[in-house]
């Protein structure tokens, strides 16, 4: 395994620019998830890495070896990159065993194959054909096949998208374990944020043909670079407020503030990220907190998500609140909200509205 460095990667199809100067670095042995909505160019990135397409500009480097650059294009078969396409892409005319052995020399086949199949937990299915396997089993065979050739880098294209919800979590865990055991450097592409956050060491969000942010799942959730990213990863309430030292004054109370980069002066207008689980909701008896009314709520078993319409004096705005357990109150109930810090703030553009107004 080895590290991967991509810099200034450009790719356009006709007039449609898919990747526009993408940079990404992955340390050796890490599992990185590329997260992006459908059509954001995730699959194109994988196909460029695998060598099925040629970039218009930019370089790709695995360890010290340059595999794509001006005038250089290493063919797919010489890249040592294990590729697992959507739905596995097993060869339908070959048995499980022959699929896994496909990339191996005759000498390497004997022990390598059975060892790998043991590792993915399919030792007893060697003689089966792909159509006799479940989706999850196919996925694991495809992974074993990719790992068989001892690749520098493993690429997984939406590996769990075709599985039903029931299978997905167990296959996901298995695949994560297998990849870590083999300590392969892995790049996984997905549009499922839950998958990215729970499985990967690093999550890179692809937006407008570039990596908008690449960070650990925790950092990405707590320190998103801007409010679009905040909304993309999990639910987010973004409101505005005024900074007062290290605190920020909001309709939901005075909260501890944290921010990136240079110190922000007191009195600065800022935008504030408040995650739904940072908001506490009480029945409307008290005087404390921001008054509002429940619009609707969704019960999810482990928690409940409640949408609260804020009273008019603060502008028409809804806040999303996450509460553990049941929602005690019916739609229409009056509630009061308060928030717990610390909260992330970004310096806000100076125009637009007076302080205290909640921002869309």
């Amino acid at each position, binding site marked *: 395994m080895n590290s991967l460095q991509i810099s200034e990667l450009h790719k356009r199809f006709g007039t449609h620019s898919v990747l526009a100067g993408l940079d990404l670095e992955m340390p050796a042995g890490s599992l990185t998830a590329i997260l992006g909505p459908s059509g954001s160019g995730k699959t194109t990135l994988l196909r460029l890495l695998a060598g099925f397409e040629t970039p218009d500009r930019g370089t790709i480097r695995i360890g010290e070896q340059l595999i794509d650059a001006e005038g250089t294009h290493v063919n797919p078969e*010489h890249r040592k990159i294990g590729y697992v396409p959507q739905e596995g892409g097993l060869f339908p005319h070959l048995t499980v065993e022959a699929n896994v052995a496909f990339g191996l020399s005759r000498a390497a086949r004997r022990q390598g194959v059975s060892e790998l199949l043991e590792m993915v937990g399919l030792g007893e299915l060697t003689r089966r054909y792909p159509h006799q396997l479940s989706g999850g089993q196919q996925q694991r065979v495809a992974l074993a096949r990719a790992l068989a050739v001892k690749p520098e880098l493993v690429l997984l294209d939406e590996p769990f998208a075709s599985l039903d919800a029931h299978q997905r979590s167990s296959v996901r865990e298995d695949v994560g374990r297998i990849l870590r055991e083999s300590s392969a450097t892995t790049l996984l592409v997905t549009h499922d944020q839950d998958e990215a956050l729970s499985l990967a060491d690093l999550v890179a969000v692809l937006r407008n043909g570039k990596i908008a942010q690449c960070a650990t799942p925790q950092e990405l959730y707590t320190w998103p670079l801007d409010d679009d990213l905040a909304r993309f990863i999990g639910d987010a309430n973004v409101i505005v407020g005024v900074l007062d030292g290290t605190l920020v004054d909001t309709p939901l109370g005075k909260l501890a503030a944290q921010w990136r980069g240079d110190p922000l002066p007191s009195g600065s207008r800022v935008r504030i990220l408040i995650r739904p689980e940072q908001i506490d909701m009480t029945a409307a008896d008290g005087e404390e907190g921001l008054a509002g009314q429940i619009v609707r709520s969704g019960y999810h078993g482990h928690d409940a998500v409640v949408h609260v319409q804020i009273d008019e004096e603060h502008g028409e705005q809804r806040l999303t609140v996450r509460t553990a357990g049941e929602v005690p109150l019916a739609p229409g109930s009056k509630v009061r909200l308060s928030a717990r810090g610390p909260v992330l703030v970004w310096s806000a553009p100076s125009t637009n509205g007076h302080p205290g107004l909640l921002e869309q």
Partner: protein
Amino acid sequence: MSVAPAVDHDPPTAARRSEFVAAHRAPPPWMLLTLSVAVAVVLVAPLCFLLIEAHGAGTSTIISLIFRALTATLLWNTVRLTVVVTVLCAVIGIAAAWCIERTDLPGRRLWAVLVVVPLAIPDFVVSFGWASLSTWVQGFRGAVLVMTLAVYPLVYLPVAASFRNADPGQEEVARSLGAGRMSTFWRITLGQARAAILGGCLLVTLMLLAEYGAFEILNYQTFTTEIFTEFNVSFNIPAASALSLVLVLLSLLVLSGEGLARGRGRVSRAGPLAQRVGARHRLGRARMPVLAGFVLLVALALGVPVGASVYWILEAGHAYLTGVSLVDAAWHTALYSAAAAALATVMALPVALLAIRHRGRPYQLLERSTYLVLALPGLVIALAFSYFTERYADGFLYQSAPLLILAYAILFFPLALVGVRASAMQAPPRLEEVARSLGQRRLAVLWRVTLPLIGPGLAAAFCLVFLSAVTELTATLILIPTGVQTLATQFWAYQQNLAYGQAAPFALAIIVIAALPSYVLGRFFDRLPSRAPIAT
């Protein structure tokens, strides 16, 4: 007589299609493009030769030859026969398909085989069987009877496949919405099979326009019989090419009409192709009459031609044993047909790959253009080739084996394309990419992944062309190398001399040789829909 189960290949749904054109934006490799263009050029060559031939005769001559009373007679004969037979074939084909696929008819599996077997019997053998037994089978009524019995399977096959794959849920929904049995049949069942019905009728029509041998035996004058006479008996090239032009125009008209009719609406089923089988309709009291109908159909279409051949052999006794020439003719038939089948399959490969894997109007058009060949009867192709080699190539290749094989390959190219196309769908490019990322070079990928996946389909394409070439008569009569006989030409020679006892063994030999690939084909196309293109 030739076979084409379903020229109608429903375009895959958008979702499925995308996996075949993963590399769609990339331009096709130049090798693939060059080969495809070369194939297309070879395919339209006969049409160009025909135009050159007509041009050589002089425009005014051609026009005066076209606008005469004879043309009107031929047109009337051809059109009325085509309309009547196509309608009859549609009725028989749809009824048989519905009974076998959708009702509790006893012995369905057996009937499903028996009603298709007539495809392996050349039209001229059916014609011979009937005409040799009864003088009533002559002229128009004879032609209607014989041609209907010979070609109705061309409607039956695609319609049965369509009934098999159609979503029974739609019928159930229609019933639940208050539509009665009959109304459901007309509005839903037939609607679902529309593309298949149209496709089948198109093949029947084209087959009728191209048929020669059967009409010659029945003394029914159509364009083909007249063209053949002008060319082979009167050596009147201008007249032959003028009539050929009309015939080709007629075929083109049919082809484009079918394209228009199909353009409206699309048959689809939502969701994955679950092979759910709807409840079969109970025949109830109609059971015995329907069974009697099937017995009658098989007796007329299969029993009479085979029975007549056996009868004439027994009648002749041992007096006319033709062992040596039979083996010799069978050998040449198999040789030419196999060579043509291989050539047509190889020619179809680049065209199919280009059309399936590379989205873009030019590539689709290129594929479409090869279907023009459907409008060229074997007779026209043979005339064009023979005229051209004689006139412009100094007789080079004239009446030689390579030219005959090439003519077969062109004539049956659309059949090969159907098979190759279906099989190329079995090999999505994604699998090749995976193979390459596993360290295999292009050639190794072709050998280890692509060929094994498309192999069965290539074999089917081969069988389809082989079968059609074995039963081909018209082009063979014109292009056969001097001093050589195939089963069809030898049969024809004996038959024309009314030596039925000597002709019959050749007819039976053709049926036997054609039956084997038909069986293989039936198996292949039966399995096709249930086999997913990629493992899911």
